[in-house]
């Protein structure tokens, strides 16, 4: 594993993404393609990212650790910390073009595209994780509870762990 290339893949994914999980499709196709991370690594990292403090986007740090140890976590942290600095340039530039309808439509198209990509990658991860009816029901319940925003994310994951213990803990 080449550290420079590792850093570049995380940096590129962050540069091309909007929001915390936006880098998932890029990292998924690159790291799986190179054999540097496995499907379970991705699912674990997303789970940890949801449970751990801070922005959900810190899931990349967990993935960096799983793929490449402490060094990988450090490289991933650096890689997700740099692209947000571009907001300073965007803020001054956007002030001049924000009312242009073409710009607004393009940004809206990007957002729609992100929705499509997120759904496809999530379903792709499901193929290695959701292997029986119990798993499918847990995934659907987590989806419903998260969308309803009735209970905190952390509680959803605790309930899922309890469900796992009940269903599979013997």
């Amino acid at each position, binding site marked *: 594993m080449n550290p420079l290339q590792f850093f570049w893949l995380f940096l590129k994914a962050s540069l091309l993404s909007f929001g915390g999980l936006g880098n998932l499709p890029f990292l998924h196709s690159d790291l799986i393609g190179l054999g540097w991370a496995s499907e379970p690594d991705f699912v674990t990292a997303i789970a940890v990212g949801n449970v751990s403090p801070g922005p959900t986007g810190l899931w990349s740090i967990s993935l960096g650790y799983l793929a490449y140890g402490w060094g990988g976590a450090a490289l991933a942290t650096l890689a997700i910390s740099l692209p*947000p600095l571009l907001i300073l340039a965007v803020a001054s530039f*956007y002030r001049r073009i924000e009312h242009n309808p073409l710009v607004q439509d393009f940004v809206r198209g990007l957002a729609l595209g992100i929705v499509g990509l997120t759904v496809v990658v999530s379903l792709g991860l499901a193929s290695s994780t959701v292997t029986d009816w119990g798993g499918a029901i847990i995934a659907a319940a987590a989806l419903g509870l998260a969308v309803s925003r009735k209970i905190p994310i952390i509680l959803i994951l605790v309930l899922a762990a309890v469900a796992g213990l009940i269903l599979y803990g013997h």
Partner: protein
Amino acid sequence: MTAPAPSLWELFSTWLVIGIQSFGGGSSTLILIHEACKKHGWLDDDEFVRWWALVQIAPGINLIKFTLLIGRKLRGVPGMAAAAAGLLVPSALVTVLMTAGFTAVQGQPLVQAAMRGVLPAAIGLSLAMGVQMGQPLAVRAYREGPPRLAVSILIVVAAAGLMASSAISPVVALLGAGAAAIVLHILVPARRTPPPPDEDRE
């Protein structure tokens, strides 16, 4: 609303508390930032909403970009560094320790059983992220009339289909979605009649 500029330490510690408190990520963090800004008079509501919209179109994690903008407003470049460090450093460390802790115990049968519940739930959460990102877009398109809603659905499905077929890279799919939105929104104008009243869901 002018408040005295906070010290760098105050910025760092405020964001540290926000980062550490925001277990479960995303929206809870934003609410905590909003509360802190209100309490200290750092940012009025109008700025808050405008900046939050702005960070959506720049690359990277939204909460980091938002933190940078607020830090810069309050204390310039040192303020940016103090606020971002408070948000990131402790949370990143805890994230790695939690991952390490998990890899150490993952062989235990009970841990494996629990993870067989948690991992599918993580898939559900990831899908929920997609739904939550899509919701405001769908509401906006719906108000512009059924043809505009159809255009939005078409772009989502086309991007998903291209991605699923692995025919092209995600970047190309995204840029294509942006370009398609420009063309299709010109071809399919928004409805001019006033939008229907909001349907209260709760």
